[in-house]
């Protein structure tokens, strides 16, 4: 079933024409096809295939469907941006996107540490190339280089961690690792070291402090279309591997990785939010905001098991999942807005480029405002419920001080989101030119904004879906 999806992807890659629109349409068709297959083959049962290298379960299916949706939205948003820039308007953009998507699919349904690794590498290598797609840009090249060097290091850490886990348990199959750990057939010392390296590797992929150095540079340096991609879909996959490796595989060692993630989480919220205040470049600001959001998401991961009691696990992990999904939705919308305002030769990535947007287009200013308030966690927008559900998991687990710290950093975060709203609404416009964007993009952008608002009023469905899919998968 999953193999079919992969096969179609790969076949399509070779069929691909150099004609740009055809490529675009083909890519979208591929994604729709993959979505249909995933949906049709979704049984709600936990199935292992490829000699237990892969697992198919409801969480994976849900995440994959959302992944396709996100990638499709990303491609719609970036279409005119890519077409306006000859250096990017090549088949590679779409080919690499599909490869990266494949990598993420592998990550989402991996049941073997090596499968996880293959997925990550497939994703990362595609992303390195995508960041450098505009090869004449010094910033982009530098970002790609930095990303590559640090990414390779992180991959090394991850592999090293995996090898230690192998040394400790004698297997790399995630479900088997869990079983052996549960039966106590493992060397605890080596396992602890393995977990440390593993968490470091994951932290790099998530982009949390202190493994966050690449995020601002890559977000800033990469072409906005690529940033949009990096800032949205891979977060879903990163969440999936956290669940797969740490929860499915190493739940017995939860004490170890929870305390590590706790530190990472608090540091991320602190560094992310405070550093974001100082930024004048919107992409860079959003990069720091991404760091803080990932930190917030991790709060849910560290409150699953309290003192060996896994009663709250489902509640906590589904909160995190909900948080990631809403973050991806909002983040895609925000970067989409940058793309919407960009024209050929004009990037619209400085915060001041949004000045007086309300004068130029009240509707899109309102959409952007919804995104910002959602990120800041102000109701009635979906970001509030994301924060709320994670916070209630934290309080339920008894970490009251952590909840207070989290809301303090949210307060700091509110400042820079408000600043965007201020620039759009209170400042005079810098240009009076009308917004030129294709109709499909405008419609999709509006839909994205409305989704943020409507999910904020009716969050129940998505919340239950997260909880239900995790319940069936864990």
């Amino acid at each position, binding site marked *: 079933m999953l193999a079919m999806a992969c096969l179609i992807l790969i076949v399509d890659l070779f069929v691909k024409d150099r004609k740009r629109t055809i490529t675009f349409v083909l890519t979208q068709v591929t994604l729709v096809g993959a979505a249909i297959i995933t949906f049709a083959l979704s049984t709600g049962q936990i199935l292992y295939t490829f000699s237990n290298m892969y697992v198919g379960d409801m969480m994976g299916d849900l995440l994959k469907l959302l992944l396709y949706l996100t990638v499709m939205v990303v491609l719609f948003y970036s279409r005119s941006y890519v077409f306006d820039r000859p250096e990017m308007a090549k088949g590679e953009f779409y080919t690499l996107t599909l490869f990266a998507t494949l990598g993420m699919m592998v990550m989402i349904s991996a049941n073997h540490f090596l499968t996880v690794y293959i997925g990550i590498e497939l994703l990362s290598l595609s992303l390195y190339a995508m960041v450098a797609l505009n090869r004449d840009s010094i910033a982009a090249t530098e970002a790609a280089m930095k990303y590559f060097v640090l990414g390779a290091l992180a991959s090394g850490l991850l592999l090293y961690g995996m090898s230690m886990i192998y040394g400790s348990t004698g297997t790399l199959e995630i479900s088997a690792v869990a079983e052996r750990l549960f039966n106590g057939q493992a060397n605890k010392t080596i396992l602890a070291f393995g977990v440390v390296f593993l968490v470091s590797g994951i932290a790099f992929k998530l982009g949390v402090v202190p493994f966050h150095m690449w995020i601002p540079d890559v977000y800033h340096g990469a072409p906005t279309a690529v940033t949009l991609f990096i800032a949205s879909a891979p977060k879903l996959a990163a969440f999936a591997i956290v669940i797969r490796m740490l929860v499915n595989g190493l739940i017995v060692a939860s004490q170890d990785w929870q305390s590590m993630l706790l530190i990472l989480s608090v540091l991320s919220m602190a560094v992310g939010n405070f550093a974001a205040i100082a930024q004048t470049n919107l992409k860079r600001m959003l990069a720091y905001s991404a760091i803080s959001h990932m930190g917030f998401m991790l709060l849910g991961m560290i409150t699953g098991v309290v003192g060996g009691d896994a009663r709250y696990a489902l509640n906590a992990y589904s909160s995190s999942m909900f948080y990631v999904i809403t973050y991806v939705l909002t983040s895609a919308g925000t970067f989409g807005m940058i793309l919407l305002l960009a024209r050929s030769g004009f990037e619209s990535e400085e915060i001041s480029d949004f000045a007086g947007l309300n004068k130029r287009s009240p509707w899109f200013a309102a959409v952007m405002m919804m995104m910002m308030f959602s990120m800041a966690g102000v109701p009635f927008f979906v970001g509030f419920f994301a924060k709320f559900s994670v916070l*209630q998991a934290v309080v339920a687990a008894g970490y009251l001080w952590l909840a207070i710290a989290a809301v303090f950093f949210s*307060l700091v975060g509110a400042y820079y989101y408000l600043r965007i*709203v*201020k620039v759009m609404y209170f400042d005079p416009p810098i240009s009076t030119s009308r917004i030129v964007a294709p109709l499909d993009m405008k419609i999709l952008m509006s839909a994205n904004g409305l989704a943020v608002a409507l999910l904020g009023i009716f969050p*129940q469905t998505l919340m239950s879906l997260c909880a239900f899919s995790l319940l069936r998968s864990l």
Partner: protein
Amino acid sequence: MSGMPLLSLAIWVPILTGLFVLATGSDRNAPLARMLALLGAVAGLLVTIPLYIDFDVTTSTMQFVELSPWIPRFNINYHLGVDGISMLFVMLNSFITIIVVLAGWQVIDNKVAQYNASFLIMSGLLNGIFASLDGMLFYIFFEASLIPLYLIIGVWGGPRRVYAAFKFFLFTLMGSLLFLVSLIYLFVQSGGSFSILDWHQMPIARVPQMWIFLAFLVAFAVKVPMWPVHTWLPDAHVEAPTGGSIVLAAIALKLGAYGFLRFSLPIAPDASQELSGLIVGLSLIAIVYIGLVALVQEDMKKLVAYSSIAHMGFVTLGFFMFSALGLEGALVQMVSHGFIAGAMFYCIGVMYDRVHSRQIVDYGGVVNTMPKFAAFFMLFAMANAGLPATSGFVGEFMVILAAVKYNFWVAFAAATTMIVGAAYTLWMYKRVVFGAVGNHHVAELTDINSREFLVLALLAIGALGMGLYPQPFTEVMHSSVNELLRHIAVSKIL
């Protein structure tokens, strides 16, 4: 009892009209936007009138209750209802919305649709706050109402509007985030309920009660505002457009006080008793010190803003003496302050629209050119100073009476406001209105037109009516207040 979901109507009629107003778009359709907004505001008031007519004064239970599940995953319900305390504020708010729409009728000529829509949406959200019986629903309305006010101050405000808007937003958010954590804590402790009424009955040990009370205190003290977290208010008032100031003074400040009644007192009664000294102290500082601060202001709006803080000090003082007289006095004071402070800000707005200055020195002898206006202004200034026969007197007098029973020196300190309040209000009035015509701006003033007359007359009816015959206001609150006091007197510590 009609079967209509009156409270839902009170919330959603203004919000939906607001969205329609927003849809009228550019300033070319400004007259349409204004008419639609007025229509929405009047409709919003009309749907609240049955709330008063059908209100049962003999019971303290919630009335007009609506309950339907909203987010079952966290047991959050769309749970509305009013008692004798909150019903008055729903009505006051709906009434003030009309005033605000009228106040911005000619003055606002920039982004008219957005301006009116912001006020209507905010009006609905504020009604939602007063009518919520679900903690999370309350919080959501509470936070969401920040957005329109932030935009109102920031878009249509004065020169330092950005600073004021940020200060307003961040101060309030700081308080409400701690409030959120305590709500979640209560949710977890109560075994998964967000119902405020459940929380009222839930026993809580002493130490958690203290923490809950303090967290609530931060949230509500910022909103009231109490000394020393009051500093955002003068900035916000000075920079906000007239309509923004009116809503801020008349309704938004009441949210904090209302929060004390709905959350702090009934949920943490033991902590309230134990820490009442703190609140009484802070209230007295607000009354005396802020009153003195008001005396030296040169900006009229700032002066009224500080006087609002002092008046709100009376409200919190009345709450924490735990007597029926004090509580009812405080509630009367809240409603009356809604009329009077709203009117004061409107009067200043009327002068500002003509002269474009709020400085007292820029005026003098206004009575010569604007006699009708001067008469109204006189009435409201007197009411602000607490003259008998105006609503300002009733509330203050009841609170002072209660204070005498509580502690003579507290009453003594509170009573000084009668002198200080009269001093700063009337001194300002004298400098602005009386005397010879100060300068050519004042000489060119034109008296109020019929629209302005209507607004002032409506507010004057409110202020005078409540002063001469407070019975209709106090009778609805009796049973709720008594029930609240009975509830507080019982310890919740197991």
